[in-house]
């Protein structure tokens, strides 16, 4: 395999920049954001250069590696800190650095009034560096470093405004939920080491025959748990909604380019494990299916524009996870949906940020309405993203989502039918809640209740949104034209290894999808046309109430995990205080009181000491006498 010296720079540049921005302190306030953006843009440039270099090579020699140093060398266990750039990682590198750079540019304007803008850019660069390390690591252990780095960076960014306790709690919640997933990943690494004696992707792939199916299932399930944590999949999805506490560019970064895509990457990268572990693969399908409906249902009831978008992310990532469970062909479609989703979700999040910017940071959609005529460009770009996510041809989501639905149906049997119907239902709900978001925000009566009219955002914010919406229009067509992405990824995931027979012709699936999308849109239009109140209705069905409370996920977690955990800790504390501390204190008390009593013997009078010696001697003599007599 060829080596390349450029890969290190991809990670080192943003990492150095982040360190400089953090260490330089206030001195960097005036130029910190510019440096952060330039560094991010240069990683994108490196990515593009590497991409074209890769395209120029023959298919079998496209992957390049770079060995940095020997990390661990203990007996038979050897791990090098090495980077691997292949057809799969380059997709992620381009997405992370490309979308990341646009978000950097956007943040210059969005965060211009924030005193801590320099720190914000330092964290953004750290996020980019960690995510790049995650996708470039050539073994699970290297990936794990990036994985943890992403967790740290997301914690720092979600809690960026940590002066507000609720935001700090949200950051902690995200971190803790991620830890659960991290445990899964570390267990998977341990099982992999015990099974293969090696944790590199290539080494494990070669020796996949050595492992029993039980071991592979265990690795697969643990990897799935890890993916659930990072990608906010059921049952670890509860942090995603609260993560909206971070500044809006962070939400765009987390939801489009980084973080939540890590789980999809992990499963796709581990395709060789999942292909041999049908149980784990089935679990992937179930988790994906459940989450895509779960997220969609939550999305229908949220009035906070960012939370509605967050729920939609959860749902769309559910589509991707489901696709990765569909076997070799599904991986490519999962990555395709991931890339298109990266564009349209980033554009919509940045659009939502633009709306908030014009609306004095108001996030409640019930207080929007009719913003379209004040912010035409934002409305237009958001609309393009909207058309992309609900899957209207020829926008990006149509190509990627349709493929997933089609592949789900082609799975065949009851499984295929259930998955297909779930994805179709998800598509309908998606159409419904996204239409609801668009109507409540950009159309209808003005409900913001103050005289100041919303104003369009500055060009520095609109240009990134515009570029992203170009992506959300064109990316689907470009990626699926002649199955270019499928062929591109073929060496990594073998999508054409097995030939699926087509149960339904693609055109039928497309028509069905379009039909449910139209139904979804019509329901939303019927329900939300005309004037709306500026408050959420109180008298709603139980289902709506449940959806507003995130389908009781938080309540469930609190009742089953948090409360018992807290009482356990409280009891342990009591045991520690009463029993263990009590014992220690009793020992101390006995010593002290004995000492106090004995101290009276030491009165400092020589004569009393002499008397004691005499008594002692007499006692000794008496004893000897008694014994010998």
């Amino acid at each position: 395999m060829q080596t390349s010296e450029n890969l290190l720079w991809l990670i080192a540049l943003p990492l150095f920049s982040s360190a400089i921005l953090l260490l330089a302190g206030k001195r960097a306030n005036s130029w910190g954001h510019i440096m952060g953006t330039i560094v991010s843009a240069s990683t994108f440039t490196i990515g593009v250069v590497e991409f074209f270099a890769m395209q120029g090579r023959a298919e079998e020699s496209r992957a390049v590696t770079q060995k940095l140093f020997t990390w661990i060398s203990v007996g038979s266990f050897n791990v090098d800190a090495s980077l691997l750039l292949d057809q799969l990682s380059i997709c992620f590198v381009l997405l992370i650095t490309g979308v990341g750079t646009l978000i950097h540019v956007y943040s210059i304007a969005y965060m211009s009034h924030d005193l801590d803008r320099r720190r914000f850019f330092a964290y953004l660069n750290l996020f980019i560096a960690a995510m790049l390390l995650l996708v470039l690591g050539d073994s699970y252990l290297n990936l794990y470093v990036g994985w943890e780095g992403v967790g740290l960076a997301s914690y720092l960014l979600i809690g960026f405004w940590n002066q507000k306790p609720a935001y700090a709690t949200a950051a902690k919640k995200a971190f803790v939920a991620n830890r659960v997933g991290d445990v899964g990943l570390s267990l998977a690494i341990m099982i992999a080491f015990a099974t293969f004696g090696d944790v590199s992707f290539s080494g494990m792939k070669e020796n996949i025959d050595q492992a029993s199916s039980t071991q592979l299932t265990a690795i697969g399930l643990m990897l799935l748990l890890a993916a659930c944590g990072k990608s906010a999949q059921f049952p670890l999805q509860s942090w995603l909604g609260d993560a909206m506490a971070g500044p809006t560019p962070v939400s765009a970064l987390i939801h489009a380019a980084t973080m939540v895509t890590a789980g999809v990457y992990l499963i796709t990268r581990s395709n060789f494990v999942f292909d041999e572990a049908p149980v784990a693969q089935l679990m992937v399908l179930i988790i994906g299916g459940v989450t895509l409906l779960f997220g969609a249902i939550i999305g229908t009831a949220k009035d906070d524009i960012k939370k509605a978008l967050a729920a939609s992310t959860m749902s769309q990532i559910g589509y991707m996870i489901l696709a990765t469970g569909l076997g070799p062909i599904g991986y490519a479609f999962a990555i395709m949906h991931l890339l298109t989703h990266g564009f349209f979700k980033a554009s919509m999040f940045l659009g939502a940020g633009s709306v908030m910017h014009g609306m004095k940071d108001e996030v409640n959609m019930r207080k929007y309405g009719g913003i379209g005529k004040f912010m035409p460009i934002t409305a237009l770009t958001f609309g393009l993203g909207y058309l992309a996510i609900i899957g209207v041809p020829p926008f990006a989501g149509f190509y990627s989502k349709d493929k997933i639905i089609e592949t789900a149906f082609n799975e065949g049997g009851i499984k295929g039918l259930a998955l297909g119907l779930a994805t179709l239902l998800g598509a309908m709900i998606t159409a419904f809640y996204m239409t609801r978001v668009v109507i409540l925000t950009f159309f209808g009566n003005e409900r913001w209740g103050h005289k100041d009219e919303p104003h369009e955002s500055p060009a520095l914010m609109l240009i990134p949104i515009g570029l992203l919406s170009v992506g959300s229009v064109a990316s689907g067509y470009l990626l699926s034209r002649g199955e270019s992405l499928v062929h591109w990824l073929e060496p990594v995931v073998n999508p054409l290894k097995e030939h699926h027979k087509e149960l339904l012709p693609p055109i039928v699936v497309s028509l069905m999808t379009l039909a449910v999308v139209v139904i979804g849109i019509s329901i939303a239009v019927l329900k939300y046309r005309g004037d709306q109140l500026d408050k959420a209705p109180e008298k709603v069905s139980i289902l709506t109430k449940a959806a507003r409370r995130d389908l009781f996920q938080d309540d469930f977690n609190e009742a089953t995990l948090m409360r018992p955990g807290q009482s356990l800790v409280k009891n342990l504390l009591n045991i520690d205080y009463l029993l263990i501390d009590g014992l220690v204190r009793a020992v101390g008390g006995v010593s002290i009181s004995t000492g106090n009593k004995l101290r009276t013997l030491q009165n400092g009078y020589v004569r009393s000491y002499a008397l004691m010696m005499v008594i002692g001697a007499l006692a000794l003599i008496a004893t000897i006498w008694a014994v010998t007599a």
Partner: protein
Amino acid sequence: MAIANYLYLSAILFTIGAIGVVVRRNSIVVFMCIELMLNAANLAFVTFARINSNLEGQVVAFFTMVVAACEVVVGLAIIVTIYRSRRSASVDDASLLKR
């Protein structure tokens, strides 16, 4: 005269010495009492040497005398030093270790 009488005398002298150490405050007197106890022991040693008809007791008596002489030198030096600094030869006054 029965030879056991020497032992009785030794015991009486030792007891007087011991009582003196315990009850007297003047360090010079205490010191003298210690000497008395040492000499009582010496008397016992030589008596036993006579009873057993060997010289071991006699030899130990010499050792005791040497020790007693050394003890006198060191002990008196201490007493004089304490008296110089504290203007008192009472053993009860020298109770600094208590505090």
